[in-house]
């Protein structure tokens, strides 16, 4: 199973909306997201910055949150999405 990361911000409303959807997906499928808050955790922020080229290319040229990152395939999806879209993305190999 791929290593999936969710970069999120504590005061980001999109992230707040996505967190329960991610948790619902985790419960239903066994998929696990490593959730990394980036505005209050410098280590997490530095990890996201280190992926700037890859993430920004898919996210309007910026480091936006929420961002979903597949550490194995380097695939990126950012923003608020429906459960089914997140599931399809997460299940991609």
């Amino acid at each position, binding site marked *: 199973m791929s290593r999936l990361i969710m970069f999120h911000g504590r005061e980001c409303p999109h992230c707040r909306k996505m967190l329960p959807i991610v948790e619902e997906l985790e419960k239903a499928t066994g998929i696990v997201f490593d959730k990394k808050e980036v505005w209050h955790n410098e280590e997490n922020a530095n990890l996201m910055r280190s992926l700037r080229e890859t993430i920004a290319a898919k996210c309007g040229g910026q*480091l936006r949150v929420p961002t979903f990152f597949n550490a194995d395939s380097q695939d990126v999806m950012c923003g608020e999405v429906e459960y089914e879209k997140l599931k399809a993305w997460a299940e991609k190999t």
Partner: protein
Amino acid sequence: MVKKKFWRCYVCNDVHCGVAPPEVCPTCKVRHAYVEVGAAEARRVLGFGPEGTFSRDDFRRAIEAFAAPNEFQVNPNEERVATLINGIFENERNHGLKYCPCRLWTKDFEEDLKIVCPCNFPTHETYKGLPNGECWCGLFVRRKA
């Protein structure tokens, strides 16, 4: 990026930041009244202490006034606005400027100026040309006709 400077009106002490001073001071209406000053002097003239004096209520009033003559408005969803303003002020307290809580600062100052709220969102793909356009974080939404 063009280097901007600070300018102070020698009549009423208004402070302007830009590549050139205003020809007419918008406050006292005196022509050719601006002299270039350093950033430290500009800050002192403006009366800002290290923590600043611009409250959340001040910011809320400022963005309402900013949006009023434009084609966008502050999001009517009060809960969302409260969350965002909280994040914006957390970022100012922790990182120095009112960075958008829905993007991450890169530590490249010029680049990060692009995510200071309000940002230039009308040029972004989440707003431009979209009937239900909004800025990335959703603080501003296109005004309904």
